[in-house]
């Protein structure tokens, strides 16, 4: 529910449906500052390392959006999302190398392929739910990456399972994408596009049908929602988003390897939305920022400690991993609704301030 200041009412349907229902000067200022930070300060004042981290965050966001759609909005638990990211990546990479397509076209074809491939593995959702659906999505992971890509896709052009693209082959129109900054801008554009599309999709008939299926599929069916079609539509959209993530990642690495798309990455993405908050687009961003950021902060910590106790450095390599596990357990114990819920509470606190209720 949205909170409006006392005495502020909607007078037209437009304002009632607007994404931003009301805005204070502070919020406008914060948004503008954020925009300047994202568009100028980070790419032009930040180091390549910072941009590299930002790109991984963006990749994680793009990858996790589809997972959030399936798990958080449609209630279809998926543990095989890396497979669809792989299809998008290989579709894009092979499109560029083997068929000489321009990058944007290859990216779109890769995304569509991933969407169709995802529909294929969404078919079992007509008959299965819960744990059984998890098993079929895990099958997607192994069938796609370990079997089809390793056995058949690698035969295309005789390149083997892992290959890289020649420098300069990835270009958006006249601009060659080959440095962190260009990848960063591409990432920003894709993330914005996908997020805006999803925000609006969730407000349409389709989005509401998905949420109905998540909340109670039998009730949704009784109310006339064609469950099967909408589930497949969800798988398709999630697959397209995954494919875009994969195609984007090709631009960041100029290379393809199945080791990028393991079951571990699928599980990682589920971790992202669990920590960020299931059923919230904010959650995807918070989760991706948290999981990527925590690793970098811990890395800095490990190096710092290694300076002071060089003899102990090896042992501290493990501490990073342990702290990471501890952070996840801490979240499940103390913040089970994810970072998005905390964000919601903080926002409401300031909206209600100075009143405590």
């Amino acid at each position, binding site marked *: 529910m949205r909170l409006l200041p006392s005495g502020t009412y909607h007078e037209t349907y437009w304002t009632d449906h607007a994404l931003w229902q009301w805005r204070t000067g502070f919020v406008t200022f914060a948004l503008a500052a954020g925009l300047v930070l994202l568009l100028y300060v980070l790419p032009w004042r930040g180091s390549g*390392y910072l941009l590299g981290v930002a790109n991984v965050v963006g990749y994680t966001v793009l990858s996790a959006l589809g997972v959030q759609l399936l798990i958080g909005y449609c209630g279809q638990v998926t543990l095989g999302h890396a497979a669809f990211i792989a299809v998008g990546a290989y579709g894009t990479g092979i499109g560029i190398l083997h068929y000489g397509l321009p990058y944007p076209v290859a990216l779109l074809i890769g995304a569509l392929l991933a969407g169709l491939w995802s529909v294929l593995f969404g078919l079992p959702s007509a008959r299965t739910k819960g744990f059984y659906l998890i098993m079929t999505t895990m099958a997607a992971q192994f069938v796609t990456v370990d*079997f089809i890509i390793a056995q058949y896709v690698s035969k295309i052009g005789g390149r083997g*399972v*892992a290959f890289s693209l020649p420098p300069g082959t990835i270009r958006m129109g006249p601009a060659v994408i080959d440095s962190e900054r260009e990848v960063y801008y591409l990432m920003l554009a894709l993330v914005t596009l996908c997020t805006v599309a999803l925000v609006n999709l969730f407000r349409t008939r389709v989005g509401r049908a998905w949420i109905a299926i998540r909340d109670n599929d039998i009730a949704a069916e009784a109310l006339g929602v064609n469950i099967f079609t909408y589930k497949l539509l969800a798988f398709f959209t999630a697959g397209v988003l995954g494919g875009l993530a994969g195609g984007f990642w090709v631009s960041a690495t100029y*290379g393809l*390897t199945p080791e990028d798309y393991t079951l571990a*990455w699928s599980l990682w993405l589920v971790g992202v939305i669990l920590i960020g908050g299931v059923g919230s687009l904010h959650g995807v961003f918070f989760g991706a920022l948290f999981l990527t950021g925590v690793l*970098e902060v811990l890395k800095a910590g490990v190096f*710092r400690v290694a300076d002071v106790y060089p003899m102990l450095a090896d042992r501290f390599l493990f501490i990073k*991993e342990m702290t990471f596990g501890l952070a996840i357990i801490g979240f499940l114990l103390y913040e089970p609704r994810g970072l998005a819920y905390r964000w919601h509470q903080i926002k409401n606190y300031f909206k209600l301030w100075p009143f405590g209720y």
Partner: protein
Amino acid sequence: MSRIGMRMVTVLLLCGLAAPLGASAQGQMITLGSLNDTTGPTSDVGREVALGIREAIQYVNDTGAVNGKPIRLRQYDYGYRIPEALTTYKRFRDFDKAVAVLGWGTGDTEALAPTVAKDQLPYLSSSWSNFLTDPKKTPFNFIYGPDYSNYARAGLQAWFDEVWMKDPRYTADRGRGVRPRLVAFFAFPVPYASAPIRALKDQAAILGFEVGPDQDIPLTALDVKSQVLAAKEFRPHVVWHGNIPMSVSTALRDAHALDLGADHIINSWGCDENLIRIAGPASERAICNIPFVIWGEASPLTPKIMEYAAKVNPGLPAARRSVRTVHAWQQTLMMVEALKRADQAGKLNGPGIREAFYTFKDWTVGLAPPFTITPDDHRPTSVFPIRIIRGGKLEPLTRIDLRAKYPDRWPRWIGN
């Protein structure tokens, strides 16, 4: 959580955030980045290498460092996750200002190769993929052991020359004109494991082998009976193992239990003393592509290696060490040698270190065959030492010189 507890957590987190900001630069130190896997799927070999690198760096710093400039090692466990390898590499480049990087896996090294070339940052990887040896494609990637593809050729050649042609078990088959049969066991989606397969099959064709269906064995396999049974229908004489000891030992034991009756050839990172410890008698007669002196074997550096292992990392005792410690020493000392030469030339930067690598002519510290690196060939050697497990020991079997054996083909066996 109580209010006090919450505050303590916040303070701790803020300290963690502030820590990197307090880091100050120390003059006259050379920073070397190192990506290692001590917790991921290749940690069974990766952990010992990570420890070994630290020991070797300690040794270098104790014995004059790089012309008096000590090395600061930035070692990081990336858990075999490629996105983390990418960000860590960028951290080494921009934040730590590393002059060079010691790398690890094939997947991340190949993924980083275009970036490395653009940044002109020398990258000496534990992945010896043949793909990384063509300077036209990967000008700043170097490897510190014989490349996988040609090593696979050499291993097969060694089995053909020393076992198939000589062993009385095969006299009857040879007399009847039977072609030797080969099956490859490896993890299909893992670039390290799949890298040498094409070369292996090419060599099999050259030597007149029949090649059976490949078997997919994950790096963390605990049971490979179905793969062994599938291979058994083909009745192979020899099996190629492309994985790491954890999974190769499983394959050897299952092959032994199901009486596959084939010989084994094992990839560079798949065979070591630990394999014999785990697989026991099942590893008997296996051929191993190990290029270095093994743990405790006589060499000029062996006493130092053992001394520093005991001094720096007593937690991993000599009884549990393996050739992986020697891998780490070879990697570190090769990089340090290049740093020294670049520093002497007054060019301690990316292109300078690359030039220094090109001055390597029959260079060795006594751990491996002599290395020669040229501006158009990053394959360090054409001599491939082959070992065989006999009586639970890794004994030298032969040395294959592929350049001498195939002089016309050798120049083409690069960069793929």
